[in-house]
């Protein structure tokens, strides 16, 4: 039994819904009690989809349990087929239906529908949303992909590939697909099928016609692309084109798989390298950043943060254990210990301890950041309605790199503003309690007293209570709020180290000298 308030991932059948909702001509019959239809609003509200997800829920009740829930399932499956006339159907159970063991696959088979029906086994009590999406996509590909006539090798034909992984409710999947298919086209590579987003079951039968596969989101596509490689000899890409460097690597990789020459990379322009080198970006150097998300996005963000913005990565982690290994490796390279957890309270504790100047995370970290008063940008699912922008805002490719620069830098306080805040703390308009204009200006003032009050309780070790002398406390208030927490912690650690009971002005500056920035 696991005590949870907020979760990074939903149950696996929600993953299956992300596949079904992304596709056209596919219907999902889900054996589920009343209430499980809440999942529809993830798509209609968070992603603002204008169509209902193609899901029929059986909606069984307690009084049905003694009689015939299997009959209810069959009737729902038959009804869904007649009403929606899909090209193919997936059938399965949600957590409650899994317990009553009605075998949706067998029941649907008995209906003898004239379309392919793929039964899903998604263990709700051990697996989660990404696994469910990945398994569903794999089952569909495995069930539908069929040997295609080989194209005769021809110098005049352009190489073709599939782009696999984008789903409904994915973080910027819509825009990543546009960016990457555009990039592939520029390179002289055509796209055979994009799936699951926008694909029909019929399109999945044609997957083997491509020369290779682009795996955009390994969380979703990895199992399917491995299957396609084994079964149909299609190699697949390993590089995730997020950031300028990774996009360049991606181009080299796809050109290799396509058997074409790597073009002059300078022909592909992103503003990001120059924006990072422009003098105004000096203030970004060494900014302490904490990164948490799904494995793929967290890894990509770490590379961009370190290599393309000159940030210092102080924390790196992911919530999906399936991708823990590469995240651990990357963290080790950065001299960190990776945080692999699905408990957001652990993430919050790590952030509070590290006092980063910027958090790159999910919806959950955005809430943590709000509470701690730390700037934050979202880099990974789970995301909320604000993270489905109206504008074109990919994460991948060269335009994606521009978007990363803008969205990561925006929440920060500009270099000059930072200096002014530091120099004129006592200005009656431009002061602490006014906060920074772009952060709404609230909540900064109380934090000092709160922080100081809290320190009275957190004293550890030999000295139970650390006392802040009034003049030191006043001086602490003059430190900009976005580094104040760290200054306070460092000072207290320093005081404890030196067995001081009272923190004076001297202690504050001694600590500052001892810690540096």
């Amino acid at each position, binding site marked *: *039994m696991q005590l*949870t308030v*907020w979760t990074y991932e939903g149950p696996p059948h929600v993953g299956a819904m992300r596949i079904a909702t992304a596709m056209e001509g596919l219907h999902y019959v889900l054996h589920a009690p009343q209430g499980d*239809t809440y999942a529809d609003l993830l798509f209609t509200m968070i992603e603002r989809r204008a169509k209902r997800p193609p899901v029929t829920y059986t909606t069984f*009740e307690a009084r049905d349990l003694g009689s015939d829930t299997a009959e209810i399932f069959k009737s729902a499956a038959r009804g869904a087929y007649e009403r929606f006339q899909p090209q193919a159907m997936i059938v399965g159970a949600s957590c409650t239906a899994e317990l009553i063991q009605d075998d949706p696959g067998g029941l649907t088979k008995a209906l003898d529908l004239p379309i392919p029906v793929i039964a899903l086994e998604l263990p709700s*009590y051990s697996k989660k949303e990404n696994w469910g999406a990945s398994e569903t996509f794999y089952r569909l590909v495995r069930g539908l992909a069929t040997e295609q006539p080989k194209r005769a090798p021809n110098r005049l034909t352009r190489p073709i590939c599939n782009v696999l992984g984008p789903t409904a409710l994915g973080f910027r999947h819509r825009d990543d697909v546009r960016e990457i298919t555009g990039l592939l086209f520029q390179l002289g590579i055509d796209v055979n099928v994009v799936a699951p987003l926008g694909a029909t079951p019929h399109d999945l039968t044609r997957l083997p016609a491509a020369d290779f596969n682009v795996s955009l989101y390994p969380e979703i596509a990895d199992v399917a692309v491995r299957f396609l490689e084994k079964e149909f000899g299609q190699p697949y890409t390993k590089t995730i084109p997020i950031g300028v460097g990774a996009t360049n690597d991606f181009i080299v990789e796809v050109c290799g798989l396509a058997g074409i020459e790597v073009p002059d990379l300078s022909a592909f322009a992103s503003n990001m390298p120059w924006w990072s080198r422009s003098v105004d970006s000096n203030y970004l150097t060494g900014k302490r950043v904490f990164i948490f998300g799904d494995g793929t996005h967290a890894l990509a963000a770490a590379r961009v943060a370190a290599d393309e913005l000159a940030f210092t990565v102080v924390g790196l982690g992911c919530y999906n254990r399936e991708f823990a290994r590469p995240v651990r490796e990357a963290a080790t390279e950065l001299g960190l210990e990776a945080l692999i957890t699905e408990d957001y309270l652990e993430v919050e504790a790590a952030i509070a301890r590290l006092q980063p100047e910027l958090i790159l995370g999910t919806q959950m970290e955005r809430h943590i950041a709000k509470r701690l008063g730390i700037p934050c940008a979202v880099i990974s699912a789970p995301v909320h309605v604000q993270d489905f922008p109206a504008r074109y805002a990919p994460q991948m490719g060269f335009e994606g790199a521009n978007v990363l620069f803008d969205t990561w830098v925006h929440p920060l306080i500009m270099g000059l503003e930072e200096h002014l805040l530091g120099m004129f703390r006592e200005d009656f308009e431009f002061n602490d309690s006014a906060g920074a204009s772009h952060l709404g200006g609230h909540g900064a003032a109380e934090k000092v007293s709160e922080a100081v009050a809290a320190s009275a309780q957190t004293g550890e070790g030999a000295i139970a209570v650390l006392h802040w002398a009034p003049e030191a406390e006043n001086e602490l208030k003059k430190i900009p709020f976005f580094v104040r927490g760290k200054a306070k912690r460092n000072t207290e650690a320093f005081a404890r180290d030196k067995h001081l009971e009272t923190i004076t002005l001297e202690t504050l500056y001694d600590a500052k000298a001892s810690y540096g920035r």
Partner: protein
Amino acid sequence: MTQLIPPLAAKALADCAAPPPARVVLRERGQREVFCGLTSIMWLHRKMQDAFFLIVGSRTCAHLMQSAAGVMIFAEPRFATAIIEERDLAGMADINEELNKTVSRLLERRPEIKLLFLVGSCPSEVIKLDLGRAAERLSMTYSPRVRILNYSGSGIETTFTQGEDACLTAMVPELPATDEAGLVVVGALADVVEDQFARIFEALGIGPVHFLPSRKAGTAVPVGPNTKFLLAQPWLRDTARTLEARGATHLPALFPLGAEGTTSWLKAAADAFGVSAERFHAVTEMPRARATRALARYNDTLAGKSLFCFPDSQLEIPLARFLSRELGMTLEEVGTPYLHSVHMADELALLPADVRISEGQDVDLQLDRCRDARPDITLCGLGLANPLEQEGLTTKWSIELVFTPIQGYEQCGDLAELFARPLNRRTRLAV
């Protein structure tokens, strides 16, 4: 019908059990686009400030709570899910032992909690986990610091607001006994509405007045044979029955939506407590006039407009009564997830005789009817709203009605505004 009704094809026309007036109710079974009872924790956990709701369920339950409303603003809300895992089901871990550990961790972390609800879910019901016994067992450990109660919010037994009914029903046996006369207002109301009603009851000279649930679990709500109670919400069938079993008397009335409903509701209490007609008039005249003035502003927007209600909270019938009688809207269909004919008798009597009332749902069939009717405004849940907007229908999300103060005289205008705004938007937008 002797055999099981096929859920997707079922369409049964049945006579309402309790005439008069004989009213035809369309009863449907099939896919329901409604929340389960767990969802009422969204407002219950804000209302009862020292209570905690521990759902014993699956990852789906936790995900529902997270997604169904924008509640992630709370770092640690006063609810959580104890997620049952494979090892619990496989018997590798003793599930009761695990629950003890979970509760102990929780109470250590939240020492301010005075009342803990163990809330059953679909999975806990299906595996027949006896949370009632668990609550008794844990109560012995943590009494008197923490009271531990149990109810089920599972989707196989409850829809959306029935979760509150189940929660309050679990609280009733715990209420202290009294022989003193008094009034209890039953059903969670926004604090601002509760305070308004408390002031009116005081002006009427009615007292003592208690509200169930109260903001603090420690506040005693005494009940006995001289207790009279008003239902502030239409979804409290079992709570009412349990209060009656303790001797309390239900005061039948319209629900306090709109000026007419609020007046009827207050009048039921005034009559029961012997308040003179003059005094009642004197106390309610001003706020009633304010409500009428506030509603007059919406006449142009709403009069003559047609309404189609999908089932959601059981507020649909009183709302339809308010919108048709006080704002002149016409009714295409009024759907409710569950129809309690006794509590709804007065409300139903005021609806036009020819309006279609439906109970339960087969969502695809109901969507077909809605598309045929082309109502000016459709009241529906969040899963249906955007798809219907895309089809050119104007919608009002129903969940807002349970999160917004809408009861009482002073909220009449706000309630009308909820329906007027989507229509207003449609006339303004030119994109």
